[in-house]
């Protein structure tokens, strides 16, 4: 009797699985035929050579002549409109120019306009529950229109940019393509992949914000692209830092000092202390923390990073002179950024001695500004404990692409929470 029941249950389960699979296949086939005509390849063309410099995907949204894609697909054109132009390529081989009208550099979205109707506009729908089947469309590796099936794993809780984790294999070239629910509505835009079916989508709600803005100003193109980018990055950085300032920070002890550890769920901390060796005469401990988000600006520039680290050094056996030789060597902070002289000014630094947690520290603030992105700075802060003969403590904090005042506020707030324990 029991074996009959279990056989029946197995059959029921198996048939349910088969039905779901069949439904998914039907959905994929119908999406391929109905939505396929609204998805295009977006190309950045070098004006001099006429060859494509980068490709991605895009889809018709809101209006028949409006297409959405990723910022990073068209970034070369945005940063250098004199050298490049935009065009689309349809599945039937048709090509025509496109005009950039708006973008969201923080969430990696761009909206372009065509002179002629491009097909039926897709519609945006809310994100389905976790586990729901999703279909991602695009033109991977320039191989032709493709549909990839995967599942929704929800919005990433630990990241600041609110991307959706998609378990499906996105490939280069699919960036900017739509990801649809099984009803064929857009829930996200393909943006990145980490391989092994771990892919990321930009939530369609951010695309909605741009489309609302465009509707209000009658689809008027953005005038000053750099000012537009700067404003968005600054606002995003301010939002993140202000959120951090309002968070309740966890703390940790490092040597004689208690310091804030994780400032936000988007920040991860790691122990990076060197493993002690037998003949070491000094011990050092290092904790590094960083946010995992950064904003793609161009193929040679990513900004929006927040990094900080704490180093504690102490010795019983080294003389103060010998100890300070090594302590000083560690007091060299740099900022991890690929920005070059076309992007930023030189650093300007200010150093003085400050009182933190009733101890004396040699503290430095360095700032450099972005040349094209007004009001954006890279900030580097460092402070070193002084006056202790056999103990040293270093704290470094750096930001790329931030508002200098907000960053300074976070630095001072962090220092104010330091506590010295004997």
């Amino acid at each position: 009797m029991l074996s009959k029941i279990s056989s029946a249950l197995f059959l029921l389960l198996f048939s349910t699985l088969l039905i779901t699979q069949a439904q998914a296949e039907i959905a994929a086939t119908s999406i391929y035929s109905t939505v396929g005509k609204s998805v295009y390849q977006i190309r950045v063309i070098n004006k001099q050579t006429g060859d494509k410099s980068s490709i991605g995907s895009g889809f018709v949204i809101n209006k028949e002549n409006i297409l959405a894609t990723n910022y990073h697909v068209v970034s070369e054109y945005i940063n250098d409109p004199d050298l490049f132009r935009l065009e689309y390529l349809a599945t039937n081989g048709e090509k025509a120019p496109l005009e950039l009208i708006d973008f969201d550099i923080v969430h990696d979205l761009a909206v372009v306009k065509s002179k002629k109707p491009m097909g039926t506009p897709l519609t945006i729908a809310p994100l389905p529950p976790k586990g729901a089947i999703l279909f991602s469309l695009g033109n991977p590796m320039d191989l032709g229109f493709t549909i990839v099936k995967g599942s929704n794993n929800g919005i990433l809780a630990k990241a600041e940019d609110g991307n959706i984790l998609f378990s499906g294999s996105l490939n280069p070239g699919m960036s900017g393509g739509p990801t649809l629910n099984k009803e064929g509505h857009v829930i996200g835009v393909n943006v990145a992949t980490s391989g092994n079916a771990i892919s990321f989508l930009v939530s369609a709600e951010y695309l909605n914000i741009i489309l609302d803005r465009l509707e209000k100003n009658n689809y008027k193109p953005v005038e000053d692209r750099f000012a537009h980018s700067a404003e968005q990055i600054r606002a995003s950085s301010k939002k993140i830092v202000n959120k951090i300032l309002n968070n309740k920070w966890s703390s940790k002890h490092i040597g004689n000092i208690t310091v804030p550890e994780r400032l936000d769920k988007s920040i991860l901390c790691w122990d990076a202390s060197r493993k002690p060796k037998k003949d070491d005469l000094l011990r050092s401990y290092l904790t590094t923390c960083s946010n995992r988000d950064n904003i793609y600006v161009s193929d040679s520039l990513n900004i929006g990073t927040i990094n900080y680290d704490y180093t504690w050094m102490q010795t019983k056996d080294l003389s103060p002179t010998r100890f300070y030789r090594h302590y000083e060597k560690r007091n060299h902070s740099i900022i991890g950024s690929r920005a070059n002289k076309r992007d930023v000014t030189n650093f300007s630094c200010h150093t003085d001695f400050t009182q933190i947690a009733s101890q004396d520290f040699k503290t430095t603030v360095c700032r450099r500004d972005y040349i094209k992105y007004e009001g954006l700075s890279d900030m580097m802060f460092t402070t070193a404990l002084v006056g202790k003969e056999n103990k040293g403590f270093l704290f470094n904090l750096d930001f790329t692409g931030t508002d200098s005042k907000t960053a300074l506020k976070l630095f001072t707030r962090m220092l104010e929470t330091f506590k010295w324990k004997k």
Partner: protein
Amino acid sequence: MEKVILETIQRGVHRYHKIDSFPVTIGRAFDNDIILQDVTISPHHLAILNENGAYQIHNLSNENGTKVNKNKIGNEPVEVSLPANLQISGLKARLLATDMKVEETRVQDCSGLFCIFSSPIWATLLLVVTIALFFVDRYLSTPVVKEPLWYLSNVLPSVWVMLGIGILIASISRLSTHRWEVIPAISIASLIFLVPQVFEYIGHFMAYLFTSDGLGSWLKNSAKFLIIPILLATFIVKTVHSKWLPAIGVAVLAYSPFLAYQVLGLVDELSLMSGFSKVPSYSHTLLPKDIRLNKTISLEQFAKEAEKATSLNVERMLKKAKEKEEKES
């Protein structure tokens, strides 16, 4: 009859020929009064005459000829006044009066610090102090337990280089005075290593004292560029008894390969300062003794001052960069 002297300078060697009677013939042939062995000189090259107390040079050579005070003379006797510079073909010579004043004697002077450097005790002490500094420096920068032999093997190459430089300096005195001035050479070689190191320590201390690397780097560069040529020039003046100007010339020449290297480094440093650098430049120095001129200030005051100072500088740089960009476009 008044006597004159013919000074010939051949391969750096000065020879003096006293002339009592006139005419006197000069040439490569053995029947001359003065025989000069140089293949460019004719067998009967010239004669020196004395006509009623006036000296005359009579060129007899049809090959390479004779110059008097840099002017080539013909085959007629030419009257000269003493002292006269002659060039007998390729050979330099002077015709001098016996009562001509000679240069003042240079007294071997052991005044000032150099006297200390010539003393074997002080030279040894300097050498020992410098080698000890090599050890101390290596010891300070090693944060692990090491055997004394490890330090020795690390320090030995520097010691060999220092002794090598000492021998090089001593050879300057050997070449010019035929004496080996080893003791002062060792002192100078030690100082060449010791002084820049001491300057660096002072610069380091100053950098912390003033919370600025400016003075320190000035001291470091002055040690690199000035101290070594000054030490070499002092050595030349004191041992070879040369005058200061030529001594400085020789010192700069001898130091020029290293100088070129240092100049290259300085140019790099300057271009980094004036050009773009990804690395922020700030005062990194930390000292075990917290001796400084800047007082400790509150965090609030620091934040205000830092914001003001960096904003001003960055705005200035930004303005410059934008002007440059506009110019380029």
